[in-house]
């Protein structure tokens, strides 16, 4: 009853070994597939009112921390060679902003930090790209949290808490993966 398998093997053997152009199956070991995956990342939109604390005092910065699970996937973690972070920022406020993005692990150890992004007042289309090569920043793949701190430029005057002008941040990531089969 095992003969069908035996025969199948023989047939395959015949098919692959009878007459054929010289084939080199080892080439497959050299195959590297290189998907480039893009994904939206974080986004937010704030109005001046959100910079005022419960006592009605204007804060100079706000901070948000969120978990970051891109590297939970072992495939991404092991085979990523480069990451591009892109931000698209609209600043309708009457003052400039500085955005600081920090990549942290579970113990809040700083693993990587963007160059500060400075957005002048009234800049409605600020684009920024940070390229991170894993070979020179191997720790970044241990990131589990991202902290974004938005710092207001000190103009000496307070904002109007009822102003409806927005500060918007959109972001995406491009993951360059290179993996053997």
């Amino acid at each position, binding site marked *: *009853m*095992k*003969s*069908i*398998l035996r*025969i*199948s093997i023989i*047939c395959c053997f015949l*098919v*692959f070994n*009878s*007459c*054929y*152009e*010289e*084939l*080199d*199956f080892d*080439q*497959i070991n*050299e*195959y*590297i*597939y*290189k*998907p*480039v*995956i*893009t*994904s*939206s*990342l*974080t*986004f*937010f*939109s*704030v109005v001046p009112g*959100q910079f005022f604390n419960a006592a009605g005092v204007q804060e100079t910065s*706000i901070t*948000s921390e*969120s*978990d*970051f*699970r891109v590297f939970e996937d072992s495939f991404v973690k092991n085979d990523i060679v480069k990451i591009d972070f*892109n931000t*698209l920022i609209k600043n309708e406020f009457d003052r400039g902003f500085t955005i600081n993005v920090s990549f942290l692990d579970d113990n809040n150890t700083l693993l990587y930090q963007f160059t500060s992004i400075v957005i002048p007042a009234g800049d409605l289309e600020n684009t920024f790209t940070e390229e991170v090569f894993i070979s020179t920043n191997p720790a970044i793949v241990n990131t589990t949290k991202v902290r*974004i701190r*938005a710092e207001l430029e000190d103009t000496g005057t307070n904002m109007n808490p009822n102003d409806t002008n927005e500060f918007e*941040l*959109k*972001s*995406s990531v*491009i*993951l360059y*993966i290179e993996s053997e089969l």
Partner: protein
Amino acid sequence: MVLQTLAQNKQILYNFAELPQTLLLNPASEVNYKFHVGVPLLSGISSDFGSKGVVLSDIFANDNRSINDKIAEAIRNLSYRDFTKINTQIEILNAGFRLKDDYYLSFGFYQELDAIGYYPKDALDFISEGNAPHVNRAFSVAGVRYKADFLGVLHTGISKKVDDKLTIGGRFKIYSSALNVESNNNTGLFTTTGGINNIYTHYLTDVNLKFKTSGLIENNEYITDVNYYLKNTIFGSNLGLGIDVGVTYRITPQLEFSGSILDLGFINHKKNTKNTSITGNFVFEGVALEFDNDNNFENWDEIDQRFQDEIPVTDDFESYISWRPTKLNLALKYNFGEYRSKICYDNTYKNFYTDAIGLQLYNVFRPLSSQLALTGFYEKAITNKIHTKLTYTIDDFSYTNVGAGLSVQLGNVNFYGLVDNLLEYGDLSSANSASFQLGFNLILN
């Protein structure tokens, strides 16, 4: 739409040299002997490999080109209709005898291994290139289509010579499936487009994926024992029924029409089944950051949960039916040449012509369309004991498929060997398909 496979076109064997195996292609094939028995395990061995869209040498030729370039080119050239298939059949037992003068009863058991997989072009594009170069493109999962079967077929058939012109025949089959895996009729699109709240919005739309398995998984573990599969080809738990019917009609002494419908049947898979389905829709535009606790923005956990809720993966162990691949053969044969006599089962002599030409049409229903093959053939009996056949076939794989067959009878021992795609035999690695059938029989007049 039913994914149908198990479809080796045996155009050379069909109606050839009164071989017992022709009865499996048309139960109304004319045979003129008293008794036959196939040499166990060696009476019918056939194998067939085909790949449409890409051949081995496209990828593995030793041509100093980068493998990445070759694979990229091969994927680029694939269409959603391209596939690869393999089919191997081996007769364990095949015998037959004449019941009364006009009836020939035949029976046997064969095992068959068959697999077909369409190339999921969009998935290959995504894996090799990612979505970044393809913003706004809808990647479809509909290209995920495959079926693989390993089964045993117990069969018995009878042909009746109604009169000098008409022979009819039928065959009853009991299928015992040892393994079936299939996935077909999948839907689902993955699209990345420019977003509103964020740079991109990602959509998973109309996802409906189904994967059926039978005989593969028991108690959530893969069955790895080969003997277990082999045992299940004989009266295992996943049984099915089917029939073949056929007709041969002599329009004039020289012109003959024949036709058959094979494997009209099904298998009911009820033991060791496990089916997985993935359905739903999902939209993702990134993680909204909270600076304001009054707003209910999503964080990663919520997105994870929403993904699981909106695109649930469910398993069930329900029984299901898989349809057998129904095949159609039609042939018109014109006999000519020298008029000879040969001795028949009733010690009478049958006159036959040494030469014949004709046309054969073969059809099997595939998921995307019927797969037709048209064959022209020339048959020549060199002596009463040596028959040859040359075929030229046009099908999905090739417009230049030349095949040849030889059947030789030495005493009571018959040997036949048939090979397809002769023009490509010199370089099989560049052939889109190749097949052969061979076997030994004892035939007694």
